[in-house]
């Protein structure tokens, strides 16, 4: 069993966190990275792009170019229909899953 429990947990859910962020609004790489790094869901922008590439290959997100205020093109990521369905499916399973884990793990016995 790995000693870094947090890293394993984050690895398991980071894709759905990205889908959740993109459901609210399309975002480009930098803003997605900032949102995830600030919440300690990823260590750096280097973790983000392989996941985005995977999500795009699976047809869960798609990209489009939009001009920024400075007139430069930015690549935006947005959720596809399949991505929305995948996120809904995750939500349905996540709550009962965390409840079950909480029941099994408990809150621990206080030690004086």
């Amino acid at each position, binding site marked *: 069993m790995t000693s870094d429990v947090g890293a394993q947990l984050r*690895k398991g859910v980071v894709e759905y966190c990205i889908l959740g962020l993109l459901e609210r609004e399309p975002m*480009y*790489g*930098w803003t997605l990275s900032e949102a995830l790094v600030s919440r300690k869901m*990823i*260590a*750096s*922008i*280097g*973790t983000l*792009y*392989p*996941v*985005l*590439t995977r999500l795009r290959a699976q047809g869960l997100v798609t990209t489009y170019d939009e001009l920024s205020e*400075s*007139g*430069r*093109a*930015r*690549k935006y990521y947005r959720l596809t229909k399949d991505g929305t369905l995948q996120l809904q499916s995750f939500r349905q399973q996540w709550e009962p899953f965390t409840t079950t884990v909480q029941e099994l793990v408990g809150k621990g016995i206080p030690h004086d």
Partner: protein
Amino acid sequence: MIDTPTPPNVAAYLRELDAALSTAPAEVRAEIVAGIEEELVGLDAATAATRIDELGDPVFIAAEATGATTPDSPTRTTPGGYSILTVVLLIIGGFVVPVIGWIVGAVLLVASSAWTRRDKLIGTLVPALTFVVATTVFLLLRGPDAGVPAFIIGGAVTFIVGLLSGIRLLRRASH
């Protein structure tokens, strides 16, 4: 749209990032470099420097990207035969076949995708400069007639530095 010149720190950072990502899948490498480039290009040097600080070391970004691309692979890999041969030649190749043995090791190091550009520079320049500096200092201290002892002392110091450098390279080899 008015094109502003790319500040040198941005160009250097992008080059370093691209080199560090040499072992990442081509698509991921291109996405990361393009994504960061679109954020940095157009900024003035000072603002870009702040962003670069936030982004962090390109080697770390590349390591994260490689780890995320192969999520089930262990973070630390065992060096392969090529990497071991390269390091062995760098450490003792120059003593077995003078100069040429080391050069073969250096060529293998530069040609390999198992190390970053920074590792390659350190792995070649540090031992080479050590030999030149150690030999020169000895000659300056003992005079031009001390050529043979200077080479022996220079070789001994270079061997120790090469050994430490080789251990570092083996630890940093990606395959």
